[in-house]
Each structure stands twice: as structure tokens, then as C-alpha cells.
């Protein structure tokens, strides 16, 4: 594919990945602030 098309797809992929990661972060911050600490600690991986 043309270099311009490649760069466009690459930037688009990175943009979507970044947006989803930010959404994941925001969800996790909200959920962490509101979660039950007993369940949170109980599900810890050791």
C-alpha cells in the first residue's frame, strides 16, 4: 500500500488503541474508587 495509506492506518490504529486504553483507565479509576475493598483484596493474585 502507499506510504500515505500505511501511515493513515497506523495512526488510526494507534489512535483507537489509545482511546480504548484511556477509556479503560477512566473506568478502572471510577470502579476502584467505588469498589468493595474486601472483594478487591480477595481477588488479588498471589
Amino acid at each position, binding site marked *: 500500500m502507499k506510504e500515505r495509506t500505511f501511515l493513515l492506518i497506523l495512526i488510526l490504529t494507534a489512535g483507537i488503541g489509545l482511546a480504548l486504553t484511556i477509556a479503560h483507565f477512566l473506568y478502572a479509576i471510577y470502579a476502584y474508587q467505588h469498589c468493595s475493598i474486601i472483594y478487591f483484596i480477595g481477588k488479588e493474585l*498471589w
Partner: protein
Amino acid sequence: MKQYNTAQMQKRSQLLLRQWAAILAVAALFAAFNFSMYQVLTRRLAGNFDGTFQARMIDLESYLPHQEETKLPETHTSLTLTGDLPVLDGATALVPVYAAVIHNLYPEGCVTFEGGTFSDDNSTGENFAADSVMQYKNTVRGYKAVVDGETDVFFGAGPSKEQEAYAKEQGVTLVYVPIGLEAFVFFVNEKNPVDGLTSDQIRKIYSGEYTNWSDVGGANRTINPVSRLAGSGSQTSFLKFMGDTPVGGKSLFALTGGAIGFSFRYYMEGIVENEAVKIISLDGVYPSADHIRDRSYPLVSSFYAIYREDNSNENISVLISWLLSEEGQRLVEESGYVRVVE
């Protein structure tokens, strides 16, 4: 149309392959990062963060008074309250106590629900009607309700500074009558090798001085000190425990570490009953009922029946006297707590 020879075709194919590989690598990088974050953090939060779940931190339906299948104890008391029945409310951990008071002292039919039957499928996890003698606003809203005169007697731990200030602002004096004993406890994951800590070690963990479990004889893993909602009974007790030691911040990375949290003993052992966590000893003493009774556990505190000094409901003094009587104290014990009057 441009014509390509075989070598050019091969070169173009290789370029195309590299381009797609680069695109897929970027996508895979994000996917791998998000998957790791899900495993370490999000998975532990899923399904337990919404308001309804928080309000349901107790299975309220199991503790409803005057129901055939209830976990509430029977005291077979001769006292039955009549007339102006005090409206009762309390902390989540004390639902078994104040619901048992209604179950044993109040006439049937005084606990009512919006729509006629109990439902926890809503944003507050309950649907007590406005005229019901049992309410469930929990500590943060419950303290306000007793000051505002919506609740007659609130069952809870001592107030936070903000709750004291709110009563003062409103010109209300609250009376605190100790009716039972409870232990403020710290807990960790059941697989965490640490079984006990000293008060000093815990203060150093929450102040940020100790950041790794190896600092207190545990595994080489970051410590994630977890706090509660401001104004909740356990957060107020925690701040009292910390005293003049300031609570430090923590890095985002600490969220992936081994956590330590705090709560009240009976709430953990008798209500939540989560076997994936364990209560730890404090200064070498485990918070068993015996160690609460003889006060050898360092963090034993009273819980109270709290009411407005200017409340003119005559049944309040009858109720308080009964709670401090042998029958009332037996009810406190049978509800899972430790009596305050021997």
C-alpha cells in the same frame, strides 16, 4: 496500468507484509497492555462498583424483621413497644442489631416497603417506605438523617469530625449510648504470608514509609494500602487509629501490589464471610470475641445508639433501657457482637 516484474512484485509484497506487521504490532501492544491491566486490576473491580452493589454490602433481605426466614435472633422478651415507634437506622455492620430490635420489640406490620414488598433492585439497595420504622441509609446519610430528625435512633460507630460539625451547625446535641463492643481490624488476601503486624508498622504503611511487604517481614511485593469512603464508620475509626501520623499518597503502580484494608470484625466474619481474605493480628493479638471482651486486642471500640437530646419520643428511653438490660445485651451478643454491660 503500471506493470511490475517479478522482483518488483516480491519487493512490494515484502513491503506490504512489513506494513501490516507494523500495524498489527501496534494493535497487539495496546491489546497486551489492556489485557495485563484487566488481569491485575479491572478484573477485581468488575461487577462490584456500582451504587446498588455498595448499598447491598449486606444481604438486607436476610435481616428483615418479622419474616419467616430471617437470620435475626429471637429473645422472647416480654416488652413490646406501642404508640409512637422510634424510627431506627444504622451502619451496614449494625443492621443485624437494629433489625433484631425491631424484630423482637416492635409489632408486626411496622416495617413497610414502597410497592408493598422488599426489593433491592434499585440505586439504594432497599425500598423502605417513608413511614417504615426500619430505614437503611448507612453511616454517611444516616448521621445526617438523625440530626435532621428523619431517624429517631441511629446505630453506629462514633461520628467523624464532619458529622460532629454538621450536628453543631444545626444546633443539635446528639446523645451517644454505648450498647456493644466491636473490634476495628486490618485484613489482607488469604494467600499473603503476613499474619500479623504491629500498630507502628501499619501506621508506617499508611503514611508511605513502608512500601514493600518485605519491609514488614513479608514477600517482596509492593504494598497497596487501601482506604474507605470519607465519613464511613471504618474510615473514621481508621483516622482515629492514625492519630497525628499523616496518611501518605501512593503511586499508581501500588494498585498492582498486595493490598491491606480495614473494616470491623463482625462485618467481615459474620456478614460478608469472604474466605479469600484474612484478618490479621495486631500487636500480637487476634481480634477474637474473647480478646474483645477482655480488651486485650488494641482496637476495641464501642458502638452506640445515637439520638437527638431534644427528641420527645418517650419510647426512646424505654428502648435504651432495654438495650442495656440483660435481655438487650443478650440480643447484642446473639447478633454477633460483644456485650458492653457484663
